[in-house]
């Protein structure tokens, strides 16, 4: 039987690949409690990666989609509404399956896009991996959910603030940067915190559905399921992964809380929008 330190060495970074620990995962009776703690913990690396990349890219896209949805051009607004409806109205689980089976059909050698004098080759072989293709689905999904939140916030920007901006002669980009964007962010921040939390939770779906875990490189819940399959005992691995996610959730709440304080720093205490934990698990 391994000691705890040995399992740490063997599995604490196993989720990064075979080279970063034991080649094979522990099996059957050989599984110790420490194995479960460290291997599931190492899977969290990928949960954080999926969530961080998706949120970082999705944030910028969501602002653009929300502005499009809010615009007075009916075609632009309708297209944005359609995008939001498609990704919010269908299960993320099915979206993963759909995009994976679409990515599989892409030619392995890449797609050539002729740009007149130069031909751009888009490498498509990576899109069937969770690290690229899975993230792409998560980006699209979080873009839709966040855009809906930002759109709601855009609608409730105080009229007086916009009039003040006009009175100062602000237009276009300056007005957006100084008045619209900060207000939008401030108003939507409590719900955006929830979005970040549940996007992080939904990263557990990546390997659950279509995307394969090559070389048994997976996220925390993938390993938890592996252990339950091996030991047929759900009372250790699942509570462990739940505890990890509760910790991750608290970290997000803390971090977003700091940003929220910064966004509201000019307001008196009472009129600040507070964060409320609103579970919206299944996407």
């Amino acid at each position, binding site marked *: 039987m391994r000691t705890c330190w040995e399992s740490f060495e063997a599995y604490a970074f196993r989720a990064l690949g075979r080279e970063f620990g034991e080649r094979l995962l522990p099996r*059957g*009776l050989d599984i110790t409690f420490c194995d479960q703690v460290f291997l599931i913990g190492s899977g969290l690396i990928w949960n954080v990666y999926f969530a961080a990349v998706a949120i970082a890219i999705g944030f910028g896209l969501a602002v653009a989609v929300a502005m499009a949805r809010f615009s007075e051009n009916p075609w632009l607004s309708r297209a944005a509404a359609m995008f939001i*409806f*498609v990704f919010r*109205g*269908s*299960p*993320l*689980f*099915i*979206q993963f*399956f*759909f995009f994976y*089976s*679409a990515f*599989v*059909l892409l030619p392995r050698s890449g797609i050539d896009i002729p740009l007149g004098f130069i031909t751009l080759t888009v490498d498509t072989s990576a899109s069937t991996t969770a690290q690229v293709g899975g993230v792409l689905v998560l980006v699209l999904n979080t873009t839709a959910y966040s855009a809906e939140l930002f759109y709601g916030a855009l609608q409730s920007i105080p009229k007086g603030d916009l009039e003040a901006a006009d009175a100062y002669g602000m237009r276009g980009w300056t007005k957006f940067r100084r008045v619209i964007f900060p207000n939008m962010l401030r108003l939507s921040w409590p719900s955006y915190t929830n979005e970040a939390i549940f996007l992080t*939770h939904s990263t*557990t*779906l990546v390997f*659950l559905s279509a995307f394969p875990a090559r070389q048994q490189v997976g996220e925390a*819940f993938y390993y*938890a*399921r592996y252990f*339950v399959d*091996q*030991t*047929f*005992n*759900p*009372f250790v691995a*699942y509570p462990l*992964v*739940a505890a990890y*996610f*509760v910790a991750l959730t608290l970290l997000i709440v803390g971090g977003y809380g700091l940003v929220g304080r910064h966004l509201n720093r000019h307001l008196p205490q009472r009129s600040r929008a507070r964060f409320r*934990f609103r*579970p*919206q*698990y*299944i*996407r």
Partner: protein
Amino acid sequence: MFGFCSDPSILDGFNWFACYLTSATHLDFYGAFLLVMVLLAVTAPAALGMGMLGALALRSRFWPFQGFGKIYVNIVRGVPDIVFFLFVPIALGQGIEWLLHQARCPDWTEPIRQGTDFLVCPEAKLPPNGSPQWMYTTYSFGMAVLAFALVFGAFVANTLHGAMQAVPHAQVETAEAYGMTRAQAFRRVVLPQMWVYALPGLSNIWQILIKATPLLFLLGLQDIVYWARELGGQKTSIFSYPHPDWRMWYFLALLVFYLFLTWASERVFAWLGRRLSHGQATAAGERQRRAAA
């Protein structure tokens, strides 16, 4: 299905598709859509009942009930959903078998957890050994419904509890001034009026419930996801209907199915909202009153 389907290899174009889409496996696939609808139809009332019990427990003045309600609602809402969906059926199954084991085989000496196995005596197996296939399917479907009802019951309990408190307090006081007991005031004043306040929350939970149904696949049931993968995969010429990898199209169909469900339920809830707002002391109710006057 059709007469001309007896030899698929000579068919082409429209006829090929007509036969392909009505083959026996495809009929199972369409049946799986029915399974989703049945799951929704069974789970929604179950979750509503569970939520009502939870909300009543939260409201109770008897502290053990209240404490139980709080623990139930907060634990379920605080743990990632997917963990719950996989945990509840296994844990519940093992729990029931363990209880049966204790009751039916008191003189069984071997330990139940032997290494990686969970062994109970044959009399405690659920469903009993040698049961027909449909018993197994029903059993796992029942477990799925229970897991869904437990999780969504907690969400519903929270919403209903909020809705009960949103009914204007003056009305409850009026009822009590007329000499109604607490229970009577609840039945006659709170219960009929709370729904308009609960509706936005319930509609939200319903949308989440719809989107949770593909998780049936994870519980080993032959649901639409299972069939989409099965039928869409590449079929070589040893099959009667060979085709390349069509999974993308099958999942597109599922996507459209879910979008339709979402769209239709949005419409139904908007209609319900209009109906329930009728005569209510809310902004929407006031607007209806003015329009009619």
